[in-house]
């Protein structure tokens, strides 16, 4: 499926209101994601990041507006067409969502289900080429030696690697990631984020990834889209953006006092960092001046 002229994702005036709620989860969202672009959705919890992502592969249906993915209107797809479309879109979840009692290898193999007919139970019900491919993907994400372990015996970071391998099994054109590292420790977080970025580069994937950490987003994506209460409040390339600029924007992204308090600390840290940087420069200048003074003496 290659329509290189059409954007990978085109969202036009998307609105979503869940039944039984008053305020919309999304309203008036319009954006294009070009092929090969790496986009970060930035926003606090409840800002509509997940809802937006889930519209791209049709896990949610829009209330208003429309979503075109890979040139197809998602809401118009039914049955096998929708499944085929989803087969081209990998999805990585915050809670990994791998099947705990199954082996790691079988979990990866489930990514290939859309290319197979009928249900499968057990590794040996999958064709041999797929098994080999799955093992190659496991090797790529660095947990090949765990292939035959139960998936729930793995650590969080390893489980997310399994989920990435499962997404790769789909040979995706688009990779959607919903807070992929929010449940991981900082060490595993940076490893997993780096892995996704590397894989995206290797396969020139289009990536839409939601995050709430500004520093992760900044060094990682090509473009940042900020969401607040279901609306796009920021859409900018990351080139030349500095952290405090983004933090400042992030401050605008936050809406309630509670949310502001939550990022207060981060803002304070940034201010401290800037302050100490200035102090360091000042003291350097002073010591330079001292030195030159001494030389003069």
């Amino acid at each position, binding site marked *: 499926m290659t329509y290189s002229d059409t954007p990978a994702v085109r969202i036009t005036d998307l609105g979503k209101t869940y039944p039984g709620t008053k305020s919309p989860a999304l309203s008036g969202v319009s954006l294009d994601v070009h092929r090969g672009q790496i986009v970060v959705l930035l926003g606090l919890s409840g800002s509509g990041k997940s809802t937006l992502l889930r519209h791209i592969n049709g896990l949610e249906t829009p209330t208003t507006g429309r979503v075109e993915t890979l040139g197809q209107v998602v809401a118009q797809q039914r049955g096998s067409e929708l*499944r085929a479309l989803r087969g081209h879109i990998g999805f990585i979840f915050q*809670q990994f*969502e791998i099947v705990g009692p199954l082996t790691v290898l079988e979990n990866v193999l*489930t990514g290939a289900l859309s290319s197979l007919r009928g249900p499968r139970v057990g590794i040996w019900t999958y064709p041999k080429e797929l098994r080999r491919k799955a*093992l190659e993907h496991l090797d790529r994400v660095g947990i090949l030696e765990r292939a035959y372990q139960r998936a729930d015996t793995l650590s969080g970071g390893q489980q997310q690697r399994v989920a990435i391998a*499962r997404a790769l099994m*789909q040979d995706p054109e688009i990779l959607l990631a919903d807070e992929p590292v929010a449940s991981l420790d900082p060490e595993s977080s940076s490893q997993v984020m780096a892995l996704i970025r590397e894989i995206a580069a290797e396969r020139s994937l289009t990536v839409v990834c939601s995050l709430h950490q500004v520093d992760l987003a900044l060094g990682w994506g090509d473009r940042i889209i900020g969401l607040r209460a279901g609306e796009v409040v920021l859409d900018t390339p990351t080139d030349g953006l500095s952290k405090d600029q983004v933090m400042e924007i992030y401050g605008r992204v936050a809406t309630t006092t509670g949310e502001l308090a939550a990022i207060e600390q981060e803002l304070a840290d940034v201010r401290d960092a800037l302050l100490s940087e200035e102090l360091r420069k000042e003291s350097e200048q002073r010591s330079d001046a001292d030195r030159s003074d001494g030389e003069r003496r």
Partner: protein
Amino acid sequence: MTVTATPPVPRASSIADRIAAVPRPRPRLSTIVSYATIGLIGVLGFASFLGLDYSLKSIETTGTNLARFIGMATPMQWPGWDVTAVVGEGGTKIFTTTWVGPEPILHMVEIILITLALVVTGTAIAAVLSIPVAYGAARNTSPHPLVLALCRGLGVVARAVPEPAIAVFLAFLWFGAGILPAIVAVGLHSVGMISKMFADAIEQTDEGPRTAIRSAGGTKPQQFWSGIFPQVLPAWVAVVLHRADINLRGTVILGYVGVMGIGAELNGALHAGPAGMRRVIPIVIIIILLCVVFEIVSSSLRAKLLGVRPTGRGVGDTVVRTALRAKDALVPVAATSAERVEAATRRPWDRARVGSAVWVWVSVAIVIASFLYLQPDVARLVSDWRFDQVHNAELGRSVWPLTFGSRDWETVLAAVLVTVQVAFAATLMGAVLSLVVGPMSARNVAPSSGVRNFFRGVALFIRAIPDLVVAILFIIATGFGPQAAALALGIGGVGLLAKLIGDSMEEVPNGPERALAAAGGTRLQVFFASTVPMSMPSSVGHLMYLLEQNIRSATVLGIVGGGGIGFLLLNALNGRNFDQVAAFVVVIIGMVVVVETAGILIRRALR
């Protein structure tokens, strides 16, 4: 949450007035329902108890009957021996026991094998059939509300219709099909319980993995088999094995309607005069031992299949471990990705894999061997249905229209009342006894671990004894139907209810208990102030579960002489009056539906 504006409490002069002015919220629904349920079961149980007439006179008669039974049943005649009586001088009988060779023993082994094979094949069929039924009956997988209602209804009906009724009907429908009707009867009846518990397990699964497969483009069947089934497999295995235990006990009842196996052997012995009576106790002992051994095997199989592996130093483990170590050393450290992948394409035979593979294949082999052993005439499932055997005016048989035969509504209702009385009296007895055994087997209530282990042991012992079998023995020995049935079910219920209550009490959060103990409360005060109220809702749920079970057991016990609606059903079955069988089955279904609906409503209110 709605905040209702409470009027400011007016400044009252005395503390007493202020106390009187404190608003008293209405008690919560769950509290009302809890106490109402307990009260109702207590009152109805007591009324049933009185209705069943455990008067002194009946107890006396029971004693006489029991003595007569023991007189007739001893000396016991075990398979392989023959007991002959010679009337000696003065009318006393002299018994001589002689060894007659191994044939009767081999015959008994064959009977046991047939029984076990019947249980295995029937349960296996139910295990497979219950997957689609549970798929349709679980709220999160069911394709349509209509399918949901249909599958749930199917489950209720399958649970309610007694196996013997299905078996006899099919035996005539497939005239001459041998053991097949019994297998199908066990299978269909078991679908009821397995599919219900399996559907509950499906509803409790984590939706995440399934969503992941859905978003990767998986079809609904793929989502189920890859995302949900692996999660519920342990529950499925546990329920199926548990059902196999129950089905083994059920075969005793099936013997009463002519199904080959240990039950038929018992029934035959009971109706073969004095020589037969001497075989009764050995057969009952064999049945009890069989049930206990089967339960041990099934629970260890459950542990193996579910991956709880023994850390043992047994011969097998050691051999496997050594072999593994040798193999590990041979695997070279691969340098390139292609080599690593190549090395990983073959799954290593580690201990976990050897263990589960062996047990899975042993289980499959047992099921296949059972089918091969019984060789049911499967073709009869679809061909050559002898409708003339179940619906034939000349033979005086019909399935339609439904009729109670010569009985009027009052007689049938009286029979239903007896069955309900047996169930309620048994539930009350079980509950009263469990009120002692249950708390005493809870770690946080029992005064010492010795006491706890003792009462745990009591509950375990009672659970191990097949209560249906004991009830049959009671009924045979005492000659009293409903009273004996209620007594046997009441004592049998302790095994289950005491364990469940004990577990619920142990699960209570222990903070409040410690706080009360720290404030100087005595053990008994802590128990009533904290443990009891906190474990109340789940205990009431367990009580309802026992009642539901007792209703079904009381019906089935009627077939072997416990009276009530089961007795009417047996008469209809013996007379091949399928129109009456169907009518009584409808009554039984109605009874079970009422009790189960009450159970569902009560559980919903307790939540």
